[in-house]
């Protein structure tokens, strides 16, 4: 135990906050050290004077003032809004907002949610729209390629290839005029009756809303030599209700070597067209099924 340590502990000693061993060590040191004893005396004197410093009593008015304050506070608490969650909820419940107003607010909220959702989905959809655009562009390209393919195949020497070319027409959304012209020329000039029938079949749906095709079909009547194609054309005319075809059909009737069945067929068609009564076509709709027809393809028709 040295002097410094002892002096540090003097206050602890006076306020009796030393452990028994600490206190024993301190007293032992004090017994040997006069300087520390003196120090203790000064400190002790001060400590005693401090103990003698009186603490006045608070004035009698303090108590009533406190209770007055407490009463005011209680009133304030009662009236003051409670900002806790529970308090807010209870205030909300006690607000008694009229039901229609609540409903209106609710529906406005729902609309808001809907708008937000829509906006979100729309933004999301824009990426898809870009993809869609690319797909459309690709589809258009494929369509163009088909048209080019059709145009190149339609002059192919092989009838099978030409049939394939004609079959592409169904896959074209909007055949251009070059394709239409090529098909019409095939219808008029192709050496193979099946190719011509297929072409006619391909052209019929186009004739519904394309005037060039209609006119081409009407003109084609005069150019056909095959009874199969002639009767098929006559059917198409009836189907389209094409009155301009009556004249060419009459002229066709005057041809000397006209097939008998075709003759009656054409007469029937003329009658239907003149009276305006739609008649069911008597020939089968799929002409290529009659490929075993006894009528040979006339080589002369190629030159027309």
């Amino acid at each position: 135990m040295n002097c410094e340590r002892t002096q540090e502990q003097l206050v602890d000693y006076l306020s009796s906050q030393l452990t028994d061993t600490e206190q024993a060590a301190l007293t032992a040191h004090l017994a040997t050290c006069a300087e520390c004893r003196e120090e203790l005396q000064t400190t002790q004197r001060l400590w005693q004077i401090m103990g003698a410093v009186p603490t006045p009593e608070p004035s009698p008015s303090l108590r009533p003032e406190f209770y007055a304050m407490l009463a005011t506070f209680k009133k304030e608490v009662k009236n003051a809004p409670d900002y806790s969650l529970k308090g807010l909820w209870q205030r909300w419940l006690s607000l008694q907002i009229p039901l229609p107003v609540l409903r209106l607010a609710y529906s406005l909220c729902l609309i808001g949610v809907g708008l937000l959702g829509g906006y979100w989905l729309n933004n999301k959809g824009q990426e898809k729209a870009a993809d869609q655009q690319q797909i459309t562009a690709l589809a258009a390209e494929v369509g163009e390629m088909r048209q080019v393919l059709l145009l190149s195949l339609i002059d192919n020497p092989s009838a099978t290839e030409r049939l394939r070319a004609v079959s592409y027409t169904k896959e074209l959304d909007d055949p251009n005029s070059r394709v239409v012209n090529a098909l019409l020329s095939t219808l008029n000039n192709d050496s193979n009756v099946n190719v011509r029938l297929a072409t006619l079949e391909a052209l019929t749906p186009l004739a519904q809303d394309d005037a060039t095709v209609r006119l081409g079909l009407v003109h084609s009547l005069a150019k056909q030599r095959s009874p199969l194609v002639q009767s098929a054309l006559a059917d198409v005319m009836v189907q389209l209700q094409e009155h301009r075809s009556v004249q060419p059909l009459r002229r066709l009737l005057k041809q000397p070597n006209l097939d008998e069945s075709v003759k009656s067929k054409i007469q029937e068609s003329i009658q239907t067209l003149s009276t305006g009564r739609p008649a069911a076509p008597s020939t089968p709709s799929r002409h290529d099924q009659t490929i075993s027809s006894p009528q040979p393809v006339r080589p002369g028709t190629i030159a027309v």
Partner: protein
Amino acid sequence: MLRVKAGDVDRMGLLFERYNRQLFGFLYHMLGRADTSEDLVQNVFYRMLKYRHTFTGDGEFRAWMYHLARNVLADYIKKNRHAAHHTDVDNLAEHLSGGSSADAALEQAQEVALLHQALGRLSPENREVLVLSRFQEMKYAEIARVLDTTEGAVKVRVHRAMNELKATYLRIEN
């Protein structure tokens, strides 16, 4: 206090009865003025009510009370920078418990007045630990809880404060 926190504000009366003198003593020794101290006692109890939700119940109520009191005191000192520690020397003699003779009483009164003066010249931090330790008779551990520090730090501060008080007292005496 937990009952007060739960909404039983009337229980605050009980706490007032138990602690108002102690609190007044602390503030009085810190400020040296009875009237201001009474106002501040009122203020501390008001804050106890207002901030009752901050009392967790973990620590002692007394430590929490002194926390609030120290805040009130700090606010007051901030607002009244020039209000130094005040000494009502005249009043002191009246409160003394009287010695064996008139002379002894007078001598003691002088000593007490000197010490009160010396105490007023200490820094608020040093005065605080001495007030808590000597006048409020708190152990170091409790002071540490009030000041949010360690027991060791309190010990050191009390020692230093005592040395400063000794020096100041002897200087005034001579």
